[in-house]
């Protein structure tokens, strides 16, 4: 570790990071229409969603308070060998992980642990999709596809660097992929319990089973999520938190 690293480390220990609260936007109740024709629409209750993905700085604050989630201390069943691999050290994000860029290479278990630490949760798949669909009119599906096709650059850009939805949520497309609570729940087609959905949609059956074949970006998200296991870490996969409205006290 050189002098610069010590300087950064000193800055990171400043309480601004630990005390900072990501602003959440309340999204109204809605309905999520799954990509697959044979699935019922899913009602989504009103919920709150972070306006941006969790950053490296925020994740560092979590690790500082929860050292068991440092790289090198997490058992493989909870995060594979790629966990935070682009960080300079277990307690230092470094040049490849700018403080205001989204944290990536975190497992579903790690993302959930962070959300729990914040007193929040991961959004459900339906919540995430409803929020992501609130695009301004100027954004076309073709533009989203173009974002998805573009290789990631390293280090990742900062949060607030792509587009804002009409609800005020940033970077739902074009910055990173994001974990959701039930990330693989739509990878099931039949009620007999077989994993047929994704292969039917992507390997030949293709758009025949889709409610909206033109939404090709949704195909990509579903395929990607269906390929994941909870311990997986991926260089472009991060997360944001959600919460449910507090029950009114009687």
């Amino acid at each position, binding site marked *: 570790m050189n002098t610069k690293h010590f300087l950064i480390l000193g800055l990171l220990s400043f309480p601004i990071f630990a005390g900072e609260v990501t602003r959440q936007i309340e999204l109204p109740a809605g309905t999520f229409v799954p990509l697959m024709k044979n*699935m*019922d*629409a*899913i*009602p989504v209750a009103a919920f709150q969603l972070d306006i941006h993905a969790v950053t490296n700085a925020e994740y560092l604050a979590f690790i500082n308070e929860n050292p068991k989630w440092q*790289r*090198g*201390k*997490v*058992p*493989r*069943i*909870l995060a*594979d*060998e*790629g*966990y935070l*691999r682009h960080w300079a050290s*277990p307690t230092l994000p470094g040049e490849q992980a700018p403080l205001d860029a989204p944290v990536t290479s975190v497992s*579903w*278990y790690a993302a*959930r*642990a962070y959300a729990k630490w914040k007193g929040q*949760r991961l959004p459900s798949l339906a919540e995430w999709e409803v929020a992501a669909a609130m695009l301004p009119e100027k954004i076309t599906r073709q533009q989203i596809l173009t974002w*998805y*096709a573009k*290789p*990631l650059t390293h280090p990742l850009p900062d949060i607030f660097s792509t587009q804002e939805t009409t609800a005020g949520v940033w970077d739902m497309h074009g910055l990173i*992929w994001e974990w959701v*609570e*039930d990330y693989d*729940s*739509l*990878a*099931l*087609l*039949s*009620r*007999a*319990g*077989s*994993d047929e959905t*994704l*292969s039917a*949609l*992507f*390997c030949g059956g293709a758009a025949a089973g889709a409610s909206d074949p033109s939404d090709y970006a949704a*195909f*990509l998200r579903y*395929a*990607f999520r*269906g*390929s994941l*296991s*909870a311990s997986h*870490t*991926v*260089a*472009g*996969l991060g997360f944001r938190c959600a919460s449910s409205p507090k029950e009114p006290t009687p």
Partner: protein
Amino acid sequence: MKTYLLCLPLFSLTILSASDACCSVANAGEAAPLYSDNSLFHLQATFLNPDGEKAQLADFKGKPFILAMFYATCPTVCPRMILDISKIDAQLDEAERSQLPILLVSFDPETDTPEKLKTFAENWDMETPRWQLWSGSPEHARTLAAGLGIRYRKAPDGEISHSAPITLVNSQGEIELQLAGPGVDSAPLIKQTKILLSASTK
């Protein structure tokens, strides 16, 4: 990566680059980890047994056990899976059976209360407490399902689509062997169960 992702023709998905760092070695001077890296005992998931008492997988530390997830109102897959587990159980001799806990954890804790699971076990004539039926929170059910590689989705009408593997867990909490679901040849699992039970009683 599963085959259906490989079927995507258009995109390079460069984010799926291979991992290049390994970092699970305990730091010098630290106590040895309580469980192995792949032990299900690491999962932060707490349940309730039929008596309403707190229970977790690590309670089984030191002995192999059979583990599956189900929900009591399942009309199709779960009854077949439970029958298959019963058949596996019947293939063991009495001494082996007495040493083998069988744990069924509910996907649907909001419906499957401990009381209802108690009734369910009675209706199925399960040998309790060797057969244990646990309930908990939706969060913890999903934690366990993720650890077992089980996918499930609750439809708006309450029915749950799910995969239904039957898992043999060893005394350290590691997945020893997993049958994909009902109807799969259970001979390998029976054989391995006997091996583990034999080793654990020596």
